[in-house]
């Protein structure tokens, strides 16, 4: 499922949860989901400061309700990452407003990067999360 405030993503993907609001609203919604049975599939933040100023953001999450023993580590990791991401985002954006002058371009790039993330998932689709799976603690 894609949590997004990007209209371009909403109109081109089926499994989306649209958030009315800005980048931070998307992160906060992801956090709500991550604390109620979902894990992060893609990282909440982009790969450059520039992308942090984007008015739009899309994050892929998935429902994870297999037996608790194996999945606790993944839940912990997702929760830790979303909490840290929100904290850092708020600190970095500071007094600035997201760069709404370039919303159209950010929508395009966010959409293209999302497609890239989905391609990445397809490439590594067969990962099995077994007992030896160790999440960095």
């Amino acid at each position: 499922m894609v949590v997004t405030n990007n209209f371009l993503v909403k109109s081109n993907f089926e499994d989306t949860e649209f958030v009315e609001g800005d980048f931070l609203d998307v992160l906060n919604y992801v956090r709500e989901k991550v604390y109620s049975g979902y894990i992060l599939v893609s990282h909440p933040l982009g790969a450059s400061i520039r992308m942090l100023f984007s008015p739009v953001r899309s994050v892929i999450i998935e429902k994870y309700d297999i037996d608790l023993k194996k999945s606790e580590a993944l839940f912990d990791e997702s929760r830790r990452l979303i909490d840290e991401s929100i904290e850092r985002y708020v600190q970095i954006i500071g007094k600035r407003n997201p760069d709404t002058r370039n919303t159209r371009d950010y929508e395009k790039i966010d959409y293209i990067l999302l497609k890239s993330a989905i391609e990445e998932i397809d490439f590594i689709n067969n990962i099995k999360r077994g007992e030896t799976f160790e999440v960095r603690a």
Partner: protein
Amino acid sequence: MRLELRKISIEGVEFGERFEVRGKTLIINKEELIEELKENPNVKEVSIDIALPGEKVRIIPVKDVIEPRFKLGSDSGFAGVTGEVTQLGEGIVNVLEGCAVVTIGDIVGFQEGVIDMWGEGARWTPFSKTCNIVVDISVVEGLNPHEHEETCRLVGLRASEIIARASKDVTTDKIEVFDMGTNNEESKKYPDLPRVVYVEMLISQGLLHASYIYGVDSAHILPTIISPNEELDGAVISGNCVAACDKITTYQHQNNEVIKELYKLHGKEINFLGVVLVPEMTTLNGKYISCDYTAKLCKMLDAQGVIVSEEGYGNPDTDLVMICSRLEKQGIKTVLITDECSGWDGMSQPLTDTAKEAVAVISTGNVSHVISLEKAEKVLGDPEAISNIAGGWTGAYNEEDGSMKCELNAVIGATSEIGTHNATVKLH
């Protein structure tokens, strides 16, 4: 592999009738260059300008920077990209040192990256000291963003090759040789020196966030071993158009300072085993695989120490600390090189992620550090772009004197995480 770089010092660039080097001045034929670059059917128009150190010229937004080089007896070029697929890392290469091709022209409106050739801004970019040949590319209608970016990338690389023809018959005393045998051979020579691997992280997340290894997009690959010679010889190219301060431009790959420094110490203080290139994946699963694999490759190479450099900021911080923790848990000492985003006062948490094993970290500067850019006499590129740059906030622009406050993250190469930079951090 043996790579010989013959450095021809350039201290000035002029337009003229032919491509040649006269003393320390590079002469280029503007019309011929433009004509050849326009052979690419996606190119609508190309304009060429020169920007020299000290001139009150601003170049913005910068897409890539490339060092012009000419390999003697071979047209390998950037193999797999501008030339046929072939092995790089060997041979004799003439380098126009002190000169750079700088491409401009935005693919998207929020692109940034400024090079000021004078004043305060010049202090913060390595490219205020190079004689820059600025190539502005506009493309034909109807291209999608991928095609647009690819065109700009190819034209920049081609421009550097055409210009480098000027060096074809020039001789020089300034020669740098990079010569290394197999790991086995080197380890037999230096059995007691600590074995060190350099792990270089590359931004690999899609359009405008890409890197290429022999032309292969690093977005969907596993970490891979490469010889340091290959990177120094043009095997790694930048498709990163977003992170001005810490994007690794092609020029910086060609002159990777971490690689050059490790090479200098090889056989004296360390046994430099080689380089592992690591794609920074977008998904968490991708990161787990990439980081596990990286640590495994280092272990297979029997590294005792690893230096890890990052590209970008944000989600790659997670990969950086994951690689560190996996290596340290295997008993391999790890040093990280990264920039930080610690606010205007430098006091905030520097990275977006942490690990208790990350205890040896070199900071290449605070991207939030605010500087003041004076009004330029001439702008190559988009004069409006300056108001787009990361850090634009109310009060940043001074209408009286036309100066602009901006954060370092808008300046090309300001906090380069592979060492081509002027900034570092002082502990109080």
